[in-house]
């Protein structure tokens, strides 16, 4: 136990004993001993120094500990005497700290906990950033130059955009996630295989014999954790691959994608630059020791400028820039603001708890003024009493904190159950030591904060003179605390109602298509299936024809992607109108889908001009086009687009516009991007993924087996995912719903705390004023007057808090802008509703005490005290 106060004390003890030894030594010398012998004898005569120090320490520390234990006992006793107040205080702490801890548990892995790589702060994601992707990417040609010439990083590594692949091991097929990575992948991230060996540069040569590392989970799941898997030959997408190692258990891909198997990506510098410039990568790097991201970016800029000129198509060049950002930033970018916002709500809630408990303790301190005054009168020092007050706060915090841990554990389970699928890392959250520490620190911190207020009110022996010496400072402090509570809870309420309103808008938002009774079946062709343009289109056509035969299926269409998900967009500047010069870059992206003729009918998207696609359009020649209203308006203004010719993607093929379709929410639930549709022709170069759409009243499960049976006749191993459109749409609502739900529960807790606080303080006030009320009633005041007086007090404090809270709400609402849909941040409805709700709660909280005040019997009250 080396507390600071102990350290200087111990120096004192040592000096005292050193003095003793010196005096003894001198004494021995005077008795005629040589100096050395005199010293050693002095030491021997003293005996065991260490034991002596121990004994002295025991004298002091025991005393300190005894005092503390005594204080704890006094505190416990006095809390037992007022069980209502104590349980409200403990409950308040439990709720506040518990909620705060669970939220901390959710955001901790996102914001604070280190990523599962050694020296994770050195890891960055680097690449081109442009409108085609929400994350930075790279192309092989540029990357090879960067890797060869860069000086900014210790190491740079890359992966290809991953995909699903088919594995055949021991004659059992599996559809799994394969990722192609560079040989130095694990080394760059500072990891080693759990079993077997890492990739070598030889493995990464083009045409080297294929090897693979498998993930720990896949090893357990598929091979039962058998070490003999090393050296095993499996077939992946028709190639024989040898398994050489198993990834560490905690391994995760830096972009958080799924990975069952890693294989060397085998970049080929010998290919023509154009080929390597259209082959995409994700690139990551490790900073040099002590280097910053800013320095690395500055060093990479010249290299970037050079390769951008070579590899980025001219029309996109102005729209791409270099991005170097930390791996954490890359991973949590989407939820970062939300996480900080939740953390803000947590702090607000903890402050509310502090204000509330401080207020309760203040009220109690005033009630105990006589007791404390007696202790002062019999000689208790100010310091002793302050210590006592803080011990009481700590006892409360300890009780509340313990309950809080239980609550946090329960809440965390509720969160994980309610949270949407994609919420980063939430699935990996569990109640752990870090949360426990947070709960401890939060309860101890709040204890210190709410302990300050009662410690400020210092009792004086003079207050023994009369019971009605009003402690003005204490009363003022209580009012300020109460107004602060009202203000904080109003801010929470406004945020919650903004979220709720925004979510409600989102729910009732017309999508531009009708999700009810729509069933979707998505599938992706195997890599080994035909790649030749015509053959692939023909295979899709075959599948389409088969699916049409399902009785009651009502198949109308096939598309490569469907809303609410966005499509593989194209830059606006890639579209040319015949007879017009190309438009400048910077026009953003346009959604684009390959559809069959029935698409608009099955989705119930109205054709507002021209005509839909027809089966007869599907022969050869350029595919006809249908534009969305937004795109048509943007390109042609008020002119009629029908019959105009457009060139897409700079391939020089002119396609006729045959129709204009109504707008849909085509990139999430809120965005209406410009969009064009191309007809799936028999010679189209289609993506390998397709979604079949059925409008039917059949049970999805029944339809699913028919769909699977039909597809199985063409390819028994093609996996098909069947979902209703409503499920797909609901997936997009999950995250806003989760956020709205979280903030709303915070606001509910906050409102409850503020109401309890108001109620507590008013009741206390009424109890203190019983005698005064009695006198006033005896002098002719009606119960109504008394009730009004109490309510006026409540109204005054609440109004003051509400004014501050209103200003705070406006400030916070501005920060929430990015989360809101369909309403302005200064939404009058939300602000008014929150104010009304707060006012109503305040009125209810004030009603009981005011009612009690008005029913005071003057005769009883005057005899009181």
């Amino acid at each position: 136990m080396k507390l600071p106060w102990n350290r200087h004390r111990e120096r004192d003890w040592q000096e005292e004993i050193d003095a003793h030894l010196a005096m003894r030594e001198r004494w021995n010398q005077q008795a005629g001993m040589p100096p050395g012998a005199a010293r050693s004898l002095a030491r021997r005569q003293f005996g065991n120094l260490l034991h002596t120090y121990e004994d002295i320490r025991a004298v002091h520390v025991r005393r300190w500990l005894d005092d503390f234990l005594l204080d704890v006992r006094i505190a416990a006793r006095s809390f037992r005497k007022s069980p209502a107040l104590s349980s409200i205080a403990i409950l308040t702490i439990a709720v506040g700290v518990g909620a705060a801890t669970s939220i901390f548990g959710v955001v901790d892995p996102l914001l604070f906990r280190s990523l599962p790589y050694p020296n994770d702060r050195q890891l960055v994601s680097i690449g081109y950033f442009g409108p085609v992707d929400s994350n930075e990417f790279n192309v092989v040609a540029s990357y090879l130059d960067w890797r060869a010439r860069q000086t900014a990083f210790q190491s740079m590594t890359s992966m290809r955009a991953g995909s699903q692949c088919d594995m055949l091991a021991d004659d059992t097929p599996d559809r799994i996630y394969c990722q192609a990575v560079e040989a130095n992948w694990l080394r760059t991230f500072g990891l080693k295989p759990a079993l077997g060996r890492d990739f070598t540069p030889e493995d990464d040569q083009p045409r080297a014999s294929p090897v693979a590392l498998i993930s720990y989970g896949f090893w357990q799941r598929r091979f039962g954790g058998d070490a003999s898997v090393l050296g095993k030959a499996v077939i992946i997408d028709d190639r024989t691959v040898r398994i050489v190692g198993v990834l560490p258990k905690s391994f995760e891909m830096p972009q958080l994608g799924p990975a069952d198997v890693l294989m060397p990506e085998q970049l080929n510098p010998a290919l023509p630059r154009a080929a390597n410039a259209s082959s995409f990568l994700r690139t990551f790097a490790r900073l040099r020791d002590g280097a910053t991201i800013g320095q690395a970016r500055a060093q990479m800029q010249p290299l970037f400028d050079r390769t951008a000129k070579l590899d980025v198509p001219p029309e996109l060049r102005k729209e791409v820039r270099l991005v170097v950002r930390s791996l954490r930033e890359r991973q949590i970018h989407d939820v970062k603001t939300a996480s900080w916002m939740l953390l803000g709500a947590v702090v607000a809630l903890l402050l509310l708890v502090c204000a509330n408990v401080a207020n309760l303790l203040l009220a109690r301190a005033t009630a105990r003024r006589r007791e404390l005054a007696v202790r002062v009168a019999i000689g208790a020092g100010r310091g002793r009493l302050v210590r006592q007050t803080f011990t009481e706060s700590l006892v409360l915090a300890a009780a509340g904190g313990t309950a809080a841990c239980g609550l946090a554990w329960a809440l965390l389970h509720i969160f994980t159950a309610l949270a949407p699928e994609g919420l980063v890392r939430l699935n990996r959250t569990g109640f752990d030591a870090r949360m426990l520490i947070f709960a401890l620190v939060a309860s101890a911190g709040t204890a210190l904060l709410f302990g300050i207020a009662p410690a400020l009110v210092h009792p004086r022996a003079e207050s023994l003179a009369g019971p009605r010496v009003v402690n003005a400072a204490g009363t003022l402090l209580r009012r300020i605390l109460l107004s602060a509570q009202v203000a904080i809870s109003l801010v929470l309420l406004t945020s919650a109602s903004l979220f709720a309103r925004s979510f409600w808008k989102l729910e009732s938002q017309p999508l531009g298509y009708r999700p009810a009774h729509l069933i979707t079946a998505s599938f992706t062709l195997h890599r080994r299936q035909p790649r030749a343009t015509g053959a692939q289109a023909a295979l899709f056509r075959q599948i389409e024809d088969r699916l049409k035969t399902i009785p009651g299926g009502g198949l109308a269409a096939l598309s490569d992607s469907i809303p609410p998900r966005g499509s593989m967009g194209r830059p606006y500047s890639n579209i040319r109108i015949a007879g017009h010069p190309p438009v400048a870059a910077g026009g953003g992206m346009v959604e684009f889908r390959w559809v069959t003729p029935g698409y608009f009918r099955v989705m119930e998207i109205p054709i507002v001009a021209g005509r839909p696609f027809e089966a007869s359009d599907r022969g050869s020649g350029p595919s006809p086009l249908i534009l969305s209203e937004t795109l048509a308006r943007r390109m042609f203004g008020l002119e009629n687009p029908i019959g105009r010719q457009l060139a897409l993607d700079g391939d020089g093929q002119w396609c006729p516009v045959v129709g204009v379709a109504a707008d849909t929410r085509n990139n999430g639930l809120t965005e209406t991007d410009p969009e064009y549709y191309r007809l799936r022709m028999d010679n189209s170069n289609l993506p390998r993924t397709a979604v079949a759409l059925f409008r039917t009243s059949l049970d999805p499960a029944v339809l699913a087996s028919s769909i699977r049976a039909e597809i199985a006749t063409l390819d028994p191993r093609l996996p098909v995912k069947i979902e209703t459109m409503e499920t797909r749409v609901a997936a997009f609502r999950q995250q806003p719903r989760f956020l709205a739900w979280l903030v709303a529960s915070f606001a509910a807790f906050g409102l409850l705390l503020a109401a309890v606080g108001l109620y507590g303080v008013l009741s206390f006030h009424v109890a203190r004023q019983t005698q005064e009320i009695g006198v006033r009633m005896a002098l002719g005041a009606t119960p109504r007057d008394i009730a009004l007086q109490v309510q006026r007090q409540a109204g005054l404090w609440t109004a003051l808090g509400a004014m501050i809270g209103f200003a705070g709400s406006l400030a916070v609402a501005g920060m929430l802008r990015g989360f809101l849909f369909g309403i302005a941040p200064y939404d009058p409805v939300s602000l008014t509703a929150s104010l009304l709700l707060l006012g109503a709660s305040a009125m209810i909280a004030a009603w009981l005490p005011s009612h009690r005040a008005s029913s005071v019997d003057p005769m009883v009250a005057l005899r009181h005290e």
Partner: protein
Amino acid sequence: MANMRPADTLQGALELLILKSLAHRPNHGFGITLHVQTVSDGLLRVEEGSLYPALHRMEKQKLLRGEWRKTENGRRARWYSLTAAGRKRLAEAEDRWTSLAEGVRRLLRFA
């Protein structure tokens, strides 16, 4: 006196020696050992290992007052003196010790 345990007695004895020695004059720890040894003609010796913890405990109990002062040789040492409570305690301890000694003496003579 009948309920006095040996440990209490011994600790009581050390306390008595300290109190008595300091009643003579304020002193530091080394001075107390010397004083006890000389006054008892070398019959009693205070163990330093017990002396200092005892001094600290008695100071905590407000029987003694400790302060840093210079010795006659100009060295800093911690000097102890009796407080009012210490003087009162000395009187009690002397009574208690005398009656204990008397009791033991009678018992020895009788046996």
